[in-house]
């Protein structure tokens, strides 16, 4: 027969197990869900992963382009979105909830579709022209993540790229490259680190400035669009009242009406 303290201990263990299960159940029920876990029905988490190795970013430039082209591609795409935003809108849908819809071929929509929060078509459909700030900031975040990621794995990345380049797309990779010395590796790493540093320092500052510049447009363009609609409505009203004015000249037909019995 086991001693009493052992029973007591077992009870305690049972209680602990139940408590753990309850906590796990509560955790699983979503009340304490990790921000790194996707919400129910969503393919991406609230905090998208800060890495370039995630499948969600397969179509982004840092998966498809060489490192030396990253800055150009990134700044070109941001510039494209900003230029598009600064173009006066051509189509204003006065009867719709969204006065200035996002065109199907818009640079903003295209960029958003490559980023995790808008990969779900239902979420992308809610994207507004004035969401330019959040899309670009998310794009910047991914760019910074890719730069930091690359910096972290810089020796391995440089070596891998060099060997893949030497192989010219064939397999297996060569085991030795004669002119690729340790000194050459350090030199290449130093060159890339300078680019990474400059990009990390200047990209965010530049984006903040451009978002500040367009903030006035963001705030006033809805009023501008409403004014456009008011202008159109005013023209409709003018034409309607013009017809009413034409009709009003028929009033003399009702003047001084007399019925047959009381005609003086």
């Amino acid at each position, binding site marked *: 027969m086991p001693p009493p303290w052992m029973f007591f201990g077992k009870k305690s263990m049972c209680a602990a197990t139940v408590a753990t299960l309850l906590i796990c159940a509560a955790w699983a029920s979503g009340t304490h869900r990790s921000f790194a876990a996707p919400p129910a029905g969503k393919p991406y988490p609230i905090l998208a992963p800060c890495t370039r190795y995630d499948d969600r970013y397969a179509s982004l430039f840092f998966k498809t382009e060489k490192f030396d082209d990253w800055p150009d591609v990134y*700044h070109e795409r*941001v*510039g494209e979105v*900003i*230029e598009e935003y*600064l*173009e*006066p809108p051509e189509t204003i849908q006065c009867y719709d909830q969204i006065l200035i819809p996002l065109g199907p071929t818009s640079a903003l929509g295209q960029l958003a579709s490559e980023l995790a929060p808008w990969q779900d078509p239902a979420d992308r459909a809610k994207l507004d022209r004035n969401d330019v700030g959040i899309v670009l900031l998310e794009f910047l975040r991914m760019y910074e993540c890719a730069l930091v990621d690359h910096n972290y794995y810089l020796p391995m990345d440089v070596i891998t790229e060099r060997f893949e380049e030497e192989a010219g797309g064939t397999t297996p990779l060569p085991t030795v490259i004669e002119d690729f010395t340790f000194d050459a590796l350090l030199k290449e790493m130093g060159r890339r680190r*300078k680019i990474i*540093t*400059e990009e990390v*320092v*200047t*990209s965010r*500052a*530049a984006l*903040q*400035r*451009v978002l*500040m*510049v*367009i*903030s*006035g*447009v963001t*705030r*006033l*363009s809805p*009023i*501008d669009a*409403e*004014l*456009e609609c*008011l*202008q159109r*409505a*005013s*023209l409709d*009203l*003018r034409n*309607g*009242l*013009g017809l*009413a*004015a034409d009709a*009003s*000249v028929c*009033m*003399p037909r*009702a*003047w*001084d*009406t*007399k*019925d047959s019995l*009381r*005609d*003086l």
Partner: protein
Amino acid sequence: MKSRLAIAGALLLLASAQSAHAETVYERLLQFSQDEYALEKSELIVEKFVKKIYPKKYLPDFQDSDVDLALQEQSAEICRPSDPENNPMDQDECAKYRELVVTLVDKNSQFRQVARDLQLAATTYEMSIDNYPGGVTSILSKLPSIIKIWQGDTDLVQSPIAEIKVRGQAYDTNMDPLFNAVESELNGLIESANGKKDRERFIAAVWRYRHGYRQVRNLEGGCTNDKLGDGTELQFLRARFCAVEQKLEAIWNQVQGIPMDPPLKPNEIVLFPIKIFEDIQVYVWVRLDDVGLMWTVQLEPVIPSLDCSGARSFAQPNPPCRDEAILGGTYPAPIPDPPEGTGLCSHPFAKRGYLCRPRDTIECMVEPGSAATGEDIHLIGCKAPNMEAPYRWTEAGPNICNEGGWRVKTQGLKQGTDTPAIDTDLAPDWCSNCYVDTLCGSCGGSQEGQTKPKEADGRIQICLNPTEPAMSTYLYIHELVHAAQNCDSPSIDLRGSTNLFIDIYLQPEGCCATEYQAYLAQCDAMGEDGVLEGVGIDIQTCAAAMTNFSCGGGSSCVQLPPGTSSNQILQDIVDYVGAHAAELGVATSCAQAVNSPDARVLKAKSSLPQVCTPKCETKYASTIGNNACMVGQCVEESFERHRLIPGRMPLVTQDEAFPWDSDSDEDPNFGEFLLMPPALSMPLPPYRPALLARQMDNFLCQLNGLPTKVPPILCSFDPRRRLRLPTKGFLELFESLINQPSEQESLRHMGERVASAVGSRVGTQVYTEYLSSALHAFEELIQAASDLLTNLESTEFPEEMCRRNADNP
């Protein structure tokens, strides 16, 4: 060889394509950030400046290109072995010399970036409310357009808002060569070296002519040679660019020959299409009175100049100019404020903004909702004193169309032409209850103008005898309003020697009511022509003063502020019109005013006939106000003068034909068509920069964890903070003391970043606060009008006649 040529050709093509590449807004801002941190390269202008001020005793062979080498940490390149003074130089010493270069570049870069950030803060607000159509948003040009669609012609006269007269006009020739010349000239101001660009002169030129080259010439005289800078850091705020001025003048000369149809009114502004230079993000705006430049997006300000070499400055005062570098620490006299009506206030839409003009209204109180206090900067000034306008008094009904004239053409006289003499052959057509016979001559006593009561055949004699003949047109407009007031009244013969209009006029308040309307039309015409601007009063004060003058003097009708003399105002107006008659384009004699009447006189005469009489022609500008006036006046004439319920003709209008008329059944459609929204007052929101500044001060103190202090600089770095609360170890204490300034620096940086964004929001808030409530009221009005039209369309007419006696079916 061929392949080499091909490569060279491709490179050339690439180079030309690169030079033609337009820098986008983002690319410029990215360049700002790269210049700010200056990790590898410095700005060209900073590079030259650092070279000039770098102590020669350290590195006698220091070159422009050494600045970038210093940033790239290439000490060996800077400390040349060939340098006789420093050979051999140890590495530590060289590192110190290199560090000095980096520090000089950093300080200048940071300063320049602060100036640019301040510009960006202003741009966030100003970019969206630009003056000329063609920008990202065009709120300013849409508002006048909407007003034009809505405004009836008599609204313009009786509720004047002093709308600007703007006309759009196309070019009649190909202007591209002239515009290209400007672009080429501006491009020539950008200097390039070592793959870098120095845009200082280019930026200065665009800002210099933002209000037009003619304005610069008028204020500062002709540009005989390229008067560049005066050698101080503010030199490019005053510099002239004669070649640019010549190119702008060529455009101005070209547009002067474009015929204007219809002829221009006094003070009418003619806008031509802008020409955008995409590559340099600048546009040329063209008005008939001036031509100027502006940025599509204002990114770069004129930064204090660093270069006083002969190419940039015509003088080299020492200080601040030394070795062709402009040293800091000297404070040249600030640029004086532009005269009133120039600068920003010379642009067509901005001149109507509340920075540039007083508010045109007779009642100008601080709105209760605005809660403006004494320390607020009042953007809304009131030129007009707080006056109460006399009531409008009509004989019967609201007379919806008002007086002043809204029809451009009606039936006209059946016979004869109105001449400056008495015309006995005039006869009215069947549309009119009256006609005007104008007489240029004595009106009896000292009266300059008089409208006599309507005679039995409808004749109303207007007599004009102004002391200043050039006032004839304005006086004529005034008397025609009296004719309109009198036109539909019974003639004097019905009641002996008087009629209802005269009865009203002879009462003190009646005089004020009738005269105020007439003077309002007269003063509106003078305001439109720019007379009142010349005299320095607004339309309402003019009308009030002249009404007092006509109805007993003093403040008999409207309480004018103490010290205001009606006689003086009238005399000033007469003197101004007499002196500027040719410029105003008004008739210079009474006979001319009658024989070649002004368009406003014609409109007033054309508006005398009845509106709805059958077979009468009416022509008016199609605006919402005029259309509504047409409908309303038709309804009014129907109710006032005719019987709409079947029955016998009564003796007077709307008299009962039968005793049971008053028992007629209720109109089932009464009140069904429309429920009007209440008229909302739209106070302009107050702008409180003093309060905002105080909040920023508080913010600075909060960042430092301190209560508010005055002045707020007391909340900044305080070395005693750490000394009073020492750490355990000395090392940490010293580290903490050393780090305190950098803590402060990071807070300052944060505040600076936040301030521009907050400023942008506050600026926009003032704008949206007003527009959102105004637009809401406007939307409700449009909705109500839309409902009315829809309901009219769907009105079902009863098949049975309305019961005339509700109690007796």
